[in-house]
Every structure is written in structure tokens, then in C-alpha cells.
């Protein structure tokens, strides 16, 4: 069917006609998907239809290529590029995800990458340019939750779909949730709820924990969710050291932690801050007195610190490459990435890859690039889950959080590593649905469709 005809007003009339015909079918259950098509879609919204009127569509990508989170940001960018290459080639892998033919709805995907410098305002500026100059039909990317939340607000304001990049804070699909934002990484709540029982079993009950917390949304989210999750095992807070994002010298906080009398050191810092703080913690003798736990492990932390430091450390990821043995689409992703970039992809790349493909599949399911239609398709995905690199996944309609399994990992001993990237053993892959935060607690109040 010629896509060009769809973008003219007459297409809407024919859809309404079809909708009237289906109106009788609304009484029957199981036709929820159809409902999205039949309802009134705005003809012009955000960058639609201009962004989808040519032979290609544009995706705006911002990742931190400099700043504290640059290592994860660079990895994330490669994930996006791989997904878009697969989509444009109409490869067998793309077909396994559910795409038909080359590109998305026959259109090639072009993209632009801008450095967000780990700063929200820089990301917003870059994406605004992508929206206004390049008519981006979808914007994506981030590593810092502060950036993710800022981009969601931009997306809601400009009515352009935002497939959130990396973001662990509960607020991204909680009190800062947006109709135009969809997030795939496990929330801090989910990660900590998965990790808690493993820690209770491995480290025991009644532990005193010292926390190093980066002073922004993500840091506080993880602290709250983690303490909540381990309280059932009688864990208490010995001290909470709050530090600004981008701190280089953690000596004063680590002195407080070393003197706190805790048995467990929970390091919530991320990226370069995690590397510096863990390195310094070792120098301050913290690791001799306490077990290290990292609720959300940065992608290259083990590589940059050395396997000996991360040995026996428990934590969670969005994805670890050894999961390829469990999920066939994960295997395709890891092998393609490894062949191209000569290292095993980390979870930043996985999020970029997965979010892009899930978006593409949703557009093809909705049969249009109209963001309202795509949003509604994503929202009803529970009744028709996506086949993905993490098995069957779907977005929860009320907060746009992807319902997906959470891997809990533990660091391997250096002697046990089978290749230079083999840093972790996956202890357990915890099913996602029971881990979800109850909607009432998230504080999410969705905005309008248009």
C-alpha cells in the first residue's frame, strides 16, 4: 500500500470508515489492538507527517561521548548503529524481530549522533536541533537519568516519540513519566528487588551497610529502592555519603565510610565515578573490612578496575553477553557486535539496539509513523508481546516501563575467566513482572497524546 496516500487527510476518512465497521466488534474482547487504529489520529503532530514523507526517516541520538559516563555512552552508540544497519539491510535478524523488508515501512532509517557530554541541557539542545532541522521522527539516547528525564519532557512538549536510552531512576517512569517516553532498562526498584533476595542468601541477614550515593535522581532512586529491598533481611544503614556527579576525589566520603563500622559497602556511583570511588575505596582499606555490592554495575567497571577488584561482587545489569546462551536473538546481537567491534557488547549497546528494534517493530505493527498510533501500539503490547533479545517483553501501559527479566550477576575470579570479557557469572535471571513497582507507588501521571 502506498504510504504517501496515508498522509493525506483522505486516509483518515477511510480509516474512520473502517473504524465504524469495526465499532460493532468493540463489544467483543481481544480487539483492543484494533482500537488504536480506529480512533481519531491527529493528521499533523510533532514532526509527523513531514518527518515521514520522504524515502527515509530520521532518528536523533544523543549519547555522552565525553564526561563521566562516556564509556557507556560510546558503547550505547554502537548498539544504535548496529540496530539501524540491521533494519536498513532487512537482514534475517531484523525479520526475526518481526520486521518486513528493508527499512521501516519501506523507508530507510537515517540518524544523527550528538555528544550529550553527560549533561541534560546539552542533550536537549542537540535533540531540539534534530527535531527542528532534521524532522526527527524518534529521539533516543542518554546514560544519565537526568538527561533521560529532560529528553522525555522535550519529547512530550514537541510531540516526538522518545525511546529512552539508559536510565535507572524510578522517576523516569515514575513521577517524571511522559506519554511520549518508553523505557527499557529495569527500574532501580526492579533491579534492587531482584538483587535483594540474592544478597540475603549470599551475604546474610542483619548486615550494616554504608552507601555512596551520587546526588541526583538516579542515586536517590537506587538508595531508596535498595534499602527497601534489603530491609526484609534486617539490613540497616550505617552511613549515607552523598556526592556530586563528577566527583574525582572521594577521600572525605570514604573516610566516613571506613569509620562507619559497616560490613557491606554499597557503591551506587556510576561510570567513571564508580571506577574512581572503587579504586580509592580499595586504597582506603574499605574492601578489606567490607563486602562490595554494586546495585547497577557500569559496563566497563570490571575492565577498568581489573577482575580481582570485582571478584565476588554482586550486582545487576540490563544485559550481560553470556545471556546469549539463553536467548537466540541475544546471540545474534552479541555475535554481530563482536564481529564488528572486536569486543563483547555491554548493556549500553544492548539498550540502544533493543529500543531501536522495538520501535521499528511497533511502527510496522501500527502501520504508520504517526507517534500517537505508535504510542498506542506500544501501550497494548501486553496482549501481543515482542520477541526480543530478552525473550518475550512488553511495555506496561500505565507507566511505559518495559516488563523484562533482570539478570543478577557476581564477579568472577580472574583465574576463572575464559576470555578477556568474561567478568561475571549470571547468578539468576529474575522474571520481570513480579518485580514491577505497583502503579500507585510510582507516582506516574501520564500526559496527553496530543
Amino acid at each position: 500500500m502506498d504510504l504517501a496516500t496515508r498522509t493525506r487527510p483522505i486516509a483518515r476518512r477511510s480509516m474512520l470508515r473502517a473504524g465504524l465497521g469495526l465499532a460493532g466488534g468493540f463489544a467483543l474482547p481481544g480487539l483492543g489492538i484494533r482500537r488504536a487504529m480506529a480512533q481519531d489520529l491527529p493528521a499533523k503532530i510533532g514532526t509527523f507527517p513531514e518527518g515521514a514523507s520522504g524515502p527515509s526517516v530520521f532518528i536523533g541520538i544523543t549519547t555522552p561521548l565525553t564526561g563521566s559516563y562516556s564509556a557507556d555512552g560510546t558503547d550505547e552508540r554502537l548498539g544504535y548503529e548496529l540496530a539501524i544497519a540491521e533494519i536498513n539491510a532487512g537482514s534475517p535478524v531484523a525479520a526475526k524481530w518481526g520486521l518486513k523488508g528493508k527499512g521501516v515501512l519501506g523507508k530507510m532509517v537515517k540518524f544523527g549522533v550528538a555528544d550529550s557530554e553527560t549533561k541534560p541541557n546539552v542533550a536537549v539542545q542537540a535533540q531540539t536541533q534534530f527535531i527542528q532541522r532534521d524532522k526527527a521522527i524518534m529521539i533516543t539516547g542518554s546514560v544519565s537519568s537526568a538527561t533521560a528525564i529532560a529528553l522525555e519532557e522535550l519529547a512530550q512538549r514537541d510531540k516526538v516519540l522518545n525511546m529512552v536510552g539508559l536510565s535507572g531512576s524510578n522517576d523516569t517512569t515514575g513521577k517524571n513519566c511522559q506519554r511520549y517516553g518508553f523505557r527499557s532498562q529495569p527500574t532501580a526498584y526492579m533491579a534492587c528487588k531482584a538483587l535483594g533476595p540474592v544478597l540475603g542468601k549470599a551475604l546474610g541477614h542483619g548486615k550494616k551497610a554504608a552507601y555512596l550515593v551520587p546526588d541526583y535522581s538516579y542515586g536517590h532512586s537506587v538508595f531508596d529502592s535498595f534499602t527497601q529491598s534489603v530491609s526484609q533481611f534486617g539490613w540497616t544503614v550505617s552511613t549515607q555519603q552523598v556526592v556530586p556527579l563528577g566527583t574525582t576525589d572521594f577521600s572525605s566520603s570514604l573516610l566516613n565510610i571506613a569509620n562507619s563500622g559497616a560490613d557491606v559497602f554499597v557503591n551506587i556511583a556510576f561510570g567513571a565515578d564508580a571506577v574512581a570511588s572503587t579504586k580509592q575505596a580499595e586504597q582506603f582499606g574499605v574492601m578489606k573490612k567490607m563486602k562490595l555490592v554494586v546495585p547497577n554495575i557500569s559496563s566497563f567497571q570490571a575492565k577498568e578496575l581489573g577482575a580481582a577488584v570485582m571478584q565476588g561482587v554482586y550486582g545487576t545489569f540490563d544485559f550481560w553477553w553470556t545471556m546469549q546462551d539463553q536467548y537466540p536473538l541475544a546471540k545474534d546481537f552479541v555475535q554481530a557486535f563482536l564481529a564488528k567491534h572486536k569486543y563483547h557488547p555491554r548493556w549500553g549497546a544492548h539498550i540502544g539496539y533493543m529500543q531501536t528494534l522495538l520501535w521499528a517493530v511497533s511502527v510496522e505493527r501500527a502501520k504508520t509513523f504517526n507517534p500517537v498510533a505508535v504510542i498506542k501500539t506500544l501501550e497494548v503490547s501486553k496482549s501481543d508481546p515482542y520477541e526480543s533479545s530478552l525473550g518475550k517483553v512488553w511495555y506496561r501501559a500505565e507507566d511505559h516501563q518495559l516488563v523484562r527479566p533482570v539478570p543478577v550477576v557476581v564477579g568472577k575470579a580472574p583465574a576463572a575467566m575464559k576470555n578477556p570479557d568474561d567478568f561475571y557469572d549470571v547468578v539468576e535471571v529474575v522474571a520481570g513482572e513480579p518485580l514491577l513497582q505497583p502503579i500507585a507507588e510510582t507516582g506516574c501521571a501520564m500526559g496527553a497524546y496530543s
Partner: protein
Amino acid sequence: MPSLPLLLSQAFNGLALGSMLALVSSGLTIILGTLGVLNFAHGALFMLGAYAAYVTLQGSDSFLLALLVGSVFMLLVGVLMERILVRLFYSRPPEDQILVTFGAGIVLVEAVRAIFGGNSQRVPVPSWGEGITQLGFLIYPTYRLELIGIITVTLGVLWVVLYRTSIGLVVRAGIEDAGMVGILGINVRRAFLLVFAIGVVAAGFAGMLYAPIVSVTPDMGGSFLVESFVVIVIGGLGSFPGAVLGGLIAGEIISITSAFDSAYSEVMLYAVMALLLVVRPQGLFGTEGRV
């Protein structure tokens, strides 16, 4: 209210932190005082020193050799930078000087990123610095303790050069009145070159010493640049003793505040700087109306 042992530990940590800040800032203040140039590439030069140490340690195991080779490298960088770039801007307005040094800083950072990538590089603590020392109730990393000693010696050497040698006399005279020194027939330009090179070496040397402690990335110099400026504002622009005392004060402020509430340690530092600017704008050792 934190316990006395904790307060004392933090006070001691402030001394260690402060001495590092003093070293990092001394290079900046010397250049500013003598040449009147605000060197915004200071953070990048700090980072360059760290990477110089990293590269040398790839080939050899000796940290001392890395310090030596790194210092020579930074000396070359300082000389090149002054001759090729900075010298052309002495007579230009300060805004132009700031822009050119800022730009040079960006070029250095991106060049390092292009060569080494954005990931953090590991510089191990030297063998003589490994482990932890127990000082009564205080447990402190041995390397940081040794750093206090190394930095004190370095600052001492700098002081001797500035206050006990004839070239130092020229430099200090140049800080007072560069024009007059020139009229007296002394080669001020050569003195300027030396001062700039010393300042660059000081920045790079601080970076080398710091490399085993922090995450060695191309962006590592950013926060040190900002902190150095705060220190020299507190101590007095262009004053070497000011940089040392300012550094120690800054270190103490950060550490002791964090004993109460770690989130406010940086805030407290900026608050003190703001207060000082109101009460005594020239800083502790600065001269009124200068720079």
C-alpha cells in the same frame, strides 16, 4: 555531631587533599602572576601529565622513571606552547588569552581522546606506596601519606627557585612590574618562557602524582581546573604563598564539611570563596588592584 576521631581523620585528610590542591594551583598562579595570562589549559595539562606517566609505565615498572620522563615531556610541552601560542598573545586583551588557552585545552583533551579512547586507564600505585598505614586511630592509604611528603618537597623546591635564585628574583620582579624589568635590560621574554614552562610542569607533575588515585580519563582535568581557580581566588591571584595556603584551606573546608554532611562539601568551598570576595576581594595574600 561527628565523633572527635572522625573529625580529626577528616582534618588530616584535608591536609592531604589541600597539599594536592596547593600543588595543582601553584602552577596556575605563577603563570597568572608573572605573565598575566589566565591559563585555561591548566586542567588539560594536568591530564596530559597523568597520561605521560601512564605511557611510560607501559614500558617500565618504575614510577620514579615515569615521573622523570613525564616532567621532561611536560617541560617540552610548556616550551612549545609558550613559543608557538601564548607568546603571541601577551599584548592582546585578556579575553583573547582566555580563548586561546581554553581552545588549546580542548585540542589537548580531544587529541588524547582520539589516541587513547574515552575509557579509563589504569595507573597502579607504585610498590613503595601500596597498602595502608595506621596512625593511631586513623587508617590512611600509604600512598597519600607519601604524597604529602613529595608535594611538600616539590613546593619547597619551587619556593627556593622563586625566592632564593636570581632567576626567581627576575620572576618576582616581573610579577611586580614587567615593564620596568625590561627597561633594566633583563631578558624578560626568556624569564616568561621559563615561568610558563615551570607552571606547565607543575600542573603535569600534579597529574602524574594523582594518576594512581583517580580515574585517568581525557576529561579528568575539568574539575581540577575549577578547583584551582577557587584556590587562587582565595589565596590571592598571582601569589605563590597564597596558592599554598589557599589550597590547604580549601582541602580542610571540603574534608571537615563532609564529616557533617558530604553533600555540602563543595558548596561550602564556593560559599567561603564568595564570602572572601565580599570581605577581602584581593584574596588572602593578593595585592589590591592587581590583575
